[in-house]
C-alpha cells in the first residue's frame, strides 16, 4: 500500500505569549513543531505499512523551513517526504492548500506509484479548521471519513476504518483509494529513531516540488486561489461581568460570602433554590 500522510509545520501555539501592555502576540523565538494532531495520522500510516508492506510518504505544503518537520517524520520511519513549496502557494486558505496537496498526491501517483490512501490529522493547532481532509477528498473524488481511530485491510482494495462519534462506534468498509482523517489523540505515536533520521539526511529522500514541477495555474494557488480573505481584525468584545473580588477572613466566611452573593442574585437564586429544595 502506498500511503500519503499530510503534515503541517506549525508555530508552537502553547509557547505564543500575549503582551497585555502592547496588545500583541509575542511570536519571536517561538519554535515550530509538527502539528501535534498529525501524529495519530502518521502513526496509523506507519502501522498499516508495517502490517501490509508498501511505503509511507509524508507531504507538506509549506515554506522550506518545514523540511525539519518532514525530517522528524522520516525519523519516525516514513519512507519518503515531499515538500510542495513555492512563493505562489503563499497566503493560501484551506481551498487553495487542499488544491495544491491534491495535485501533489496526483503527481505522486503518476511518478512514484499509485497512492492508495491519504491520511490527515484532524486539525492544526494554528488554524484548527479540520477542513483539509474533506477538501482533498473533494478534489480527488475519493470517499472519506473523519474521527478515525484505527484501520485494517479487509480484502482486495478495501480498508475497514473504525471511528467514534458522539453517539456511536462505527466501522466502515471503504474502497481504495480513500482519504481518512484521524481523531485527536487516537494513536500514540512512536518515537523518532536516530538511525532513521541519519539515513534520511544521507539518502536525502525529501523531494521538493515547486510550481514549475506541479504546473498549476497561479490563479488557483496561494492568495489568488483563496476565496476567503481576512477583512479586518479587532479585539474580542469583553463580556460584561460584575468583577467583585473578595478576600475572605477564613474558609467559612468565603463560603457564606459566595452564598450571599448567589442567593441575592436573581439570575441564579431560583436555580439554586430549585436544586436545594425543589422549589420552582
Amino acid at each position, binding site marked *: 500500500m502506498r500511503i500519503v500522510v499530510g503534515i503541517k509545520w506549525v508555530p508552537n501555539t502553547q509557547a505564543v505569549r500575549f503582551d497585555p501592555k502592547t496588545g500583541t502576540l509575542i511570536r519571536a523565538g517561538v519554535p515550530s513543531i509538527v502539528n501535534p494532531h498529525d501524529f495519530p495520522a502518521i502513526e496509523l500510516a506507519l502501522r498499516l505499512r508495517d502490517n501490509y508492506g508498501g511505503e509511507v510518504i509524508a507531504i507538506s505544503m509549506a515554506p522550506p523551513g518545514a523540511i525539519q518537520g518532514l525530517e522528524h517524520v522520516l525519523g519516525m520511519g516514513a519512507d519518503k517526504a515531499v515538500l510542495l513549496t513555492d512563493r505562489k502557494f503563499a497566503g493560501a486558505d484551506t481551498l487553495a492548500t487542499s488544491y495544491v496537496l491534491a495535485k501533489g498526491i496526483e503527481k505522486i501517483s503518476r511518478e512514484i506509484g499509485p497512492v492508495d490512501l491519504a491520511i490527515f490529522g484532524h486539525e492544526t493547532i494554528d488554524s484548527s479548521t479540520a477542513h483539509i481532509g474533506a477538501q482533498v477528498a473533494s478534489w480527488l473524488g475519493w470517499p472519506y471519513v473523519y474521527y478515525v481511530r484505527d484501520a485494517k485491510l479487509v480484502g482486495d482494495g478495501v480498508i475497514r476504518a473504525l471511528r467514534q462519534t458522539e453517539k456511536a462506534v462505527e466501522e466502515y468498509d*471503504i474502497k481504495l483509494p480513500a482519504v481518512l482523517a484521524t481523531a485527536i489523540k487516537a494513536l500514540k505515536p512512536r518515537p523518532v529513531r536516530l538511525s532513521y533520521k541519519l539515513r534520511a539526511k544521507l539518502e536525502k529522500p525529501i523531494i521538493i516540488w515547486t510550481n514549475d514541477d506541479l504546473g498549476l495555474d497561479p490563479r488557483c494557488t496561494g492568495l489568488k486561489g*483563496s476565496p476567503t480573505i481576512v477583512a479586518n481584525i479587532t479585539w474580542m468584545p469583553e463580556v460584561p461581568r460584575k468583577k467583585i473580588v473578595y478576600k475572605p477572613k477564613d474558609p467559612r466566611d468565603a463560603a457564606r460570602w459566595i452564598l450571599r452573593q448567589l442567593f441575592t442574585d436573581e439570575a441564579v437564586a431560583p436555580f*439554586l433554590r430549585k436544586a436545594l429544595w425543589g422549589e420552582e
Partner: protein
Amino acid sequence: MPVKVQCEKLCPEWPCEQPDEFHDIWVVMEADEHGINEASLQMLTPAKKIQSKKPDEKIVAVLVGHDVKKYAEIPIKHGADKVIVVDDPRLATYYPRVYGQVIVDLAKKYKPAVILVSATMRGREMGPYIANTLRTGITADCTDFDVDEKTGDVLMIRPPFAAIMLAYIKTPFRRPQMGTARPNVFPVPEPDESRTGEIIEEKLEDILDPGMQLVSHTPVKRSEVLIEKAEIIVSVGKGIGTPEGVQLAEKLASLLGGVVAGSRKAVDAGFVTPDRQVGQTGKSVKPVLYIAIGISGAAQHMLGVREAGRIVAINIDPEAPIFRQSDYGVVGDYRPIVEALIEELERLKQEGPQALEELLKEAQAS
C-alpha cells in the same frame, strides 16, 4: 453592492458566477430518528441576524435524510421561511460524501448566497466537502456573523488562535458564503407556533456511489448529563491538583444539581475526560452558573463561557486573570473553601429556606 467578478481572473477550476445571482440564507439541518439536532436549529439565530441586515433574503432550512419529512415544520417554527426536504430511503445511512453531494446539487440548482452549518461532528466532516465541491470558501467555528454594509458580503467572525482577537473573514468573489459555528455558541430561536412557511420537496435522481459501506454501528451510552446542557457547572483547572480535589468538585456539583467540567490542563492531567473540556478547542457552554475552581482564566478557556450567566472564581492567586472576567471572585486555597461551601449547602438543604433567610440577614447586620 457586491463585487463584479472578472472571469478571466478566476481559477479556471471554479465556475464563473456573479455574486448577485445568489440569494437566500441556507441552514443545513441535521436529523436522525430522534428529530432535528438542536445544534442545527441554533444556526437559525445567526441566519436571522444576517436576514435582519438583508431583509430581501429568505431563510431556508435544508433537511436531508430518510424519514425526515415529518420534521419539516420544526425549522419554520424557529424562524425559517422555507424548507427544502430531500427524503429518500437511499439516504438511510449517512455517508459524508453522499449527503454532501446532495446539498451541493441543491445549491447548484437554487444558488443560495449563504450556507450555515453547525460544527457538530457531522457538520465538521461534511461542511468542507460541500464548500470545496462548490469551489467556495468556508470559515470554521465562527463566534458571530455580520454583514458588510458596503458590499453586502457576510462577515464570518472567528477568533484566530489567540482567542483575544477576532478576525472578520469574507468571501467577496465566491458564492455561497459558508460558515460553521460550534454547538451552543448561539441559542435556538424561540419557537412561534403560528409561523407558516413553504415546504419544497426535492426528489433525488442519481445518487453518488458512496464508495463505502457502514458495517457496524454500536451506540455509545451517554451516561451523564452533557456539559452543553447543564444549568450549573463546577469546572476544575490545573489548580485542583489531585483526583481528591476533583471529588470535592463533584460533591459540590451534585449538591447543586450540576455537572463537572474542566480546563484543557485539567483534561491533560486526566482530572476530567476530554468530552468535558470547556473552551476554544473544547465545548462552549451556557450554564446559569459557572463555578471555576483553580482555573487561571486563559482566553482560550474563557471563550467557552461567554454565554454563561454568572461566573464564580475561586483561585489562590489574587492576580489570576479569571478575576477580571468573573462576577464573584474569592481569593484563597480552594480546598477548605469548597469544603465549607459544601458544608453550608448541606446545612441549608436540611434546614430549609428559613436558614437561608438567616444567612442573608446576617449580612445586613454586619
